[in-house]
């Protein structure tokens, strides 16, 4: 753990009135990570992101971003942080270019020289380089999303904090964004992405944190979460023979579902060789890993936003 921390929180808690939106949260994001922040609707992801950026004040707890306390050091920290919070926003009557120029000019100590180049370069990065001067109110959802990302990238941040960055994008767009984020990460940018799309996180992130009703339930390297379970999944045209042979070999078949078998074994190649030697064909073979979905569903309770009515007291019908 020699890398510096990009985001660290301790005992972060936020009450909205008497409602506890985030509870005793301890985040730990290191520089160079692509951190996936997972959680069901209403679990407190956006609230956490807002607290990291100083938009919402924590009720208690400490936040450190890029090694400095937040929100106290916002002036020094935030210029190095690019962010997108709950969807993009821009001045609707101005063009995307004008919007970026304004956002660039707002930052403290922003210099006028090179502003135009910065804007054009960023537009190119998100694939809006060729956009005309139409006002943002005429943009499509995807264009707005890209513009929002451009605003986040404008100042070449060391840390990107993105709340659901792919909302509303088509598959191609999602792939573009993913590629862009990975490219930025390769150049040394730490990326913090919140999402409830497990598949997206799975493809992008190196570390994940899972939030459930404002509490952190899992925080681990993705590789660890997805370590092999010690079982091998195989498919065979002759399952009965295979089961008999495996029994003979002293291997336990833990699941049997038609022509698919789950076998406790460490080495897939060895298992394959044993079966083939016994004249049993194998047409599918893979090491079983836990999916992120399993991890998340195992760790979390029912949806945070589903306010189901509590079961009614049983009526005594006599």
């Amino acid at each position, binding site marked *: 753990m020699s890398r510096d921390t990009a985001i660290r929180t301790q005992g972060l808690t936020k009450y909205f009135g008497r409602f506890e939106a985030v509870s005793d949260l301890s985040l730990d994001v290191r520089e160079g990570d692509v951190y996936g922040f997972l959680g069901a609707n209403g679990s407190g992801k956006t609230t956490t992101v*807002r607290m990291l950026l100083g938009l919402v004040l924590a009720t208690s707890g400490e936040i450190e971003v890029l090694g400095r306390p937040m929100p106290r050091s916002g002036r020094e920290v935030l210029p190095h942080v690019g962010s997108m919070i709950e969807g993009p926003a821009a001045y609707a009557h101005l063009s995307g270019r004008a919007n970026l120029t304004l956002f660039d000019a707002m930052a403290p100590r922003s210099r006028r020289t090179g502003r135009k180049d910065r804007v054009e370069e960023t537009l190119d990065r998100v694939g809006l380089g060729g956009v005309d001067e139409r006002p943002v109110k005429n943009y499509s959802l995807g264009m707005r999303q890209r513009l929002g990302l451009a605003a986040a990238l404008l100042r070449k941040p060391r840390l990107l904090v993105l709340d659901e960055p792919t909302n509303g994008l088509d598959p191609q767009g999602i792939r573009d964004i993913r590629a862009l984020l990975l490219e930025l990460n390769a150049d040394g940018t730490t990326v913090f992405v919140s999402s409830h799309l497990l598949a997206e996180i799975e493809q992008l992130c190196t570390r994940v944190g899972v939030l459930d009703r404002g509490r952190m339930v899992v925080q681990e390297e993705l590789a660890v979460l997805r370590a092999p379970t010690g079982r091998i999944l195989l498919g065979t045209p002759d399952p009965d023979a295979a089961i008999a042979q495996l029994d003979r070999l002293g291997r336990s078949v833990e699941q049997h579902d038609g022509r698919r078998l789950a076998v406790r074994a460490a080495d897939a190649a060895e298992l394959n060789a044993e079966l083939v030697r016994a004249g049993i064909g194998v047409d599918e073979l893979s090491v079983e890993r836990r999916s992120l979905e399993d991890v998340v569903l195992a760790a979390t309770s029912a949806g945070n936003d589903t306010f189901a009515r509590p079961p009614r007291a049983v009526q005594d019908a006599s």
Partner: protein
Amino acid sequence: MIRVELSKLLRSRRTWTTIALIDALPTLVGVLLAVTDLGPRPGEGPAFLSAVLTDGTLFPLAALAIVLPLFLPIAVSVTAGEAIAGEAAAGTLRYVLVRPVGRLRLLVAKLVAAMAFVVLTVLVVAATAYVVGVALLGDQSVQVVGSTSVSGTSLSTPELVGRTFLALGYAMLCMLGVAAIALFLSTVASSSLGAALGTMSIFVGSSLLLTLDASEAIRDYLPTRYWLAFVDLFRDPILWRDLQAGVILQVAYVAVFFAAAWANFATKDVTD
């Protein structure tokens, strides 16, 4: 940030539409006066309007007296009421704050922008009115030296110009008070319409209270109390009493409401 706010203000089409609309009323009044040659009856109608039929150079003041009680403050309430609530509703507030733009700095920039709007509007109204007044109004056949003060003495042209600019400045200050109230409400209300309506109800209510004897005790604290005191600049000698009180009152309003805006906004949760 101030520069950004100003550029946003100047680039917004709404700014110019509003100014054009405000400007339209005194211009229309000027044209109608010129066509019909019918001044208001004494004691009725805004200040100076009866005088412009003989002296067109007074029309900027008459125009000011026309827009100051209602039109201008409404426009200022709408513009300044939008300051924070409008950005919040558009979602841009959070992106502005994480630039980062300090919250106090944002408030200052918003107030300056509102002030710029006021200055721009007042100058446009005064300039148009001057052109209308000189071209259409006044009795061109009588080449008089200077104008007449409200007290009946003559005012030289430099005196008139100087006092006119003082009057414009005074009106701008009064509108700054409105802007400060609107800015505060804008940090409280979740919609800019709410902030604008709140501000309007404050100055409409204040104007109403001024007409009641029962409100004697609080009269001198009402925001609209001295709005029309700019007329006193044209008495001879100038009656500074109400003007001074008006300046102090407006400065106090700006101080209190700006402080309140800051107190409310500095640690407000931005969740829109």
